[in-house]
């Protein structure tokens, strides 16, 4: 940082093995065991989260459950409980917002706090972090790790280095030196592919990367390469990292997908799932106060061939019924009749906020639906997502699967509930 007096103080608070820890609160017998959250070992699907004990055997999130079982047959496999995680995530948030007005829940189990200027109130960063750590523990019985730095990216890497249950402060000016010895994979956004590409250039550590000329990276990886060069030097660069903590940005789209336990061509199974997906999308649109102008259907057959088809609406909507109607129409217009379906997805795009034109012909109807669905949303807030459902979607109820924010994804903003099906 060029001027440490202007430097920000950013906390990255990351819950330790969040899903597993929450499960342990409900079933203390799980403590200290290898635990895999996501489903039964013989089920289709992927691991949502694994306890540190299970991770020792190579189990990690996004791994197929069957593979996890092979790696660690002694593990306890439990179903995920999205409801519980949401509740605890909210509790964590309510602690965090007492420490800073600028809190951004990047995903269900991690948050960034802009702590700049809180010293007089909460003490120096390390002290504030201890108080925060204790408050989270006291009020949620959960452990977290905290990374502190002048930049979000470094704070995120620091919290990872501090795990489990630790606090790590990277002093202003020391960001590059802190990152240098770490493998490039530690930089959020660097995945297997980039890692391999970089290895081809003889780059293994962040330090190697930082020594490289920015222009070389720019040439090889384009804009993303330039961002990478900045990241390697400990700066927030590229895409999401350029924005301020807590800066509101509306989502570009909202979508939900479901993979069937068993591929199906049964319309009595397919339609309710479409209805359920549409309802989930509608709920989130209402939560954000957005209306979608396009509805897109994603359809994957058993042979993994996948199509997406979209429809533009004359009047943007946030109503489950209209989203379902469009998704259903797209399904029948494009489905190879009788072909078995593996995955369905409903996606709402071209999102609009602000003034919405009312319809002269449908207004009464849509006003009633809007009121009914908003009432349903309040019930769901209180009693859980399955409290109310469209009749059509009743049979489409499926256990919602969740995953903790996979390392590397910068994360999402607060309030956004995104638990895509895997």
């Amino acid at each position, binding site marked *: 940082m060029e001027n440490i007096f202007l430097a920000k103080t950013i906390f990255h608070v990351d819950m330790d093995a969040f899903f597993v820890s929450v499960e342990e609160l409900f079933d203390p017998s799980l403590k200290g065991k290898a635990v895999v959250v996501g489903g039964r070992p013989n089920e289709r699907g992927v691991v949502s989260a694994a306890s540190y004990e299970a991770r020792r055997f190579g189990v990690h999130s996004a791994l197929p459950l069957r593979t996890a079982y092979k790696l660690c047959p002694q593990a306890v496999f439990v179903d995920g409980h999205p409801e519980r995680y949401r509740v605890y995530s909210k509790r964590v948030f309510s602690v965090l917002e007492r420490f800073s007005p600028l809190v951004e829940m990047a995903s269900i189990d991690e948050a960034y706090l802009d702590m700049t200027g809180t010293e007089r109130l909460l003490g120096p960063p390390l002290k504030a972090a201890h108080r925060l750590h204790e408050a989270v523990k006291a009020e949620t019985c959960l452990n977290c790790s905290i990374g502190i730095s002048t930049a979000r990216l470094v704070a995120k890497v620091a919290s990872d280095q501090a795990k489990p249950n630790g606090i790590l402060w990277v002093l202003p000016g020391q960001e590059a030196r802190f990152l240098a010895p770490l493998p490039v994979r530690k930089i959020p956004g660097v995945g297997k592919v980039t890692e391999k590409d970089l290895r081809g250039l003889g780059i293994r550590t962040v330090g190697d990367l930082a020594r490289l000329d920015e222009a070389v990276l720019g040439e090889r990886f384009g804009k993303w390469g330039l961002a990478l060069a900045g990241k390697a030097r400990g700066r927030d660069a590229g895409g999401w990292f350029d924005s301020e903590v807590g800066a509101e940005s509306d989502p570009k789209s909202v979508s939900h997908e479901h993979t069937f336990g068993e591929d199906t061509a049964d319309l009595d199974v397919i339609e309710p799932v479409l209805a359920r997906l549409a309802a989930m999308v509608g709920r989130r649109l209402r939560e954000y106060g957005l209306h979608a102008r396009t509805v897109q259907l994603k359809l994957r057959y058993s042979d993994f061939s996948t199509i997406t088809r979209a429809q533009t609406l004359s009047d943007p909507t946030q109503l489950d019924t209209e989203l379902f109607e469009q998704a259903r129409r797209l399904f029948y217009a494009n489905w190879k009749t009788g072909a078995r379906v593996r995955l369905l997805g409903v996606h709402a795009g071209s999102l*609009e906020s602000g003034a919405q034109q009312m319809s002269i012909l449908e207004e009464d109807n849509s006003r009633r639906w809007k009121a009914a669905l908003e009432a349903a949303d309040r019930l769901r807030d209180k009693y859980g997502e399955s409290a109310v459902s469209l009749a059509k979607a009743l049979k489409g109820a499926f256990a919602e699967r969740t995953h903790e924010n996979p390392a590397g994804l910068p994360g999402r903003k607060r309030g956004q509930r995104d638990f895509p099906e895997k």
Partner: protein
Amino acid sequence: MEFTVAKADLVRELNLSQGVVEKKTTIPILSNVLIEAAGERVTLTATDLELGIRCSCPATVLREGSGTIPAKRLLDYVRLLPEADLTLKFLENHWAAITCGRSRTRMAGMSRESYPGLPDMPDPVAEIPIGLLSSMIARTAFAISVEESRFTLNGALLVLRPQGAIMVATDGHRLAYVEASCQMPEMKPFRVLIPKKAMAEIVKLAQESGPEGKVVLSADENHLFFYVGERLLISRKLTGNFPDYERVLPKDEGYGLTLDREEVRGSIERVSQFSDERSRAIRLQLHDGEVKVFSSSVETGESEESIPGEYEGPDIDIGFNANYLLDFLRVVPQEKVCLELKDGKSAGEFKPSGDDATFRYRYVVMPMRI
């Protein structure tokens, strides 16, 4: 085939066919105009299969016959000729030779064999002044939907009854309704959907036919026929159920406000420069004795004007798409307009203020949620 015709006559009739000729070149022959010479007239036919027009003008027919040539090229060329008679003659290879004064031109044409036939006009069902029909179109056509998927809204509803005619158009956001009094005692009630494109052509025919012109209407199962003077416009019918417009028209009067058309139009035009580009939302605020119009957008700024107008109802804050209001204000001929509102969530109704012996004009606009 060979005939001689006054250039001005040919240009006038060709002009009328231009709106009908197929613009996309999917079927090449539909870009052509069919020219038929018989008796003492030459007849021009154009169609895009949705719409067809047949016009004619006097000519000296030297040899009867027919052929087709590209409509736009023919008009573009003939327009440039001097004001004189020209002779058109079809050659054996379907080409046409045009001579006029010292100009000699040969144009590539196509055989008339593959030119589609137009249906014959059945018995008339009604006759109304063309100017009346054209005025009804001007008051409603702007409210027709531009969404091609909303098929039944891609035109206007025309209802003919012994005591008069009604035309209604809506795009689902606003509805324009006009009722014209004209006595047609023998008339059996008649109800059709007229496609938007046909309406535009009727307006053109009205302009050509003068104030006294009449239009004779008829219909077969699939087509509508509008016979104006020597010209016949044929349109495919729009099918489907037009929305129940009577349900949409407000039954009881709202809180009224009379405004000067030009003043309110000017205010909305200026203020809406600062509305959101996509939604075009503006707000009207009605207080006791005061009307304000304003809009703001994060990108462009904000603007506000107060409009002189007597208002005595409760406070109402309502959002509208500025374009929808301007559409009405640009066609209504009266200098004073009346706006009636119920509350911020119900449709607003606009109408001309004062008495109008011929037209009863109502424009209902749904507000925007703001």
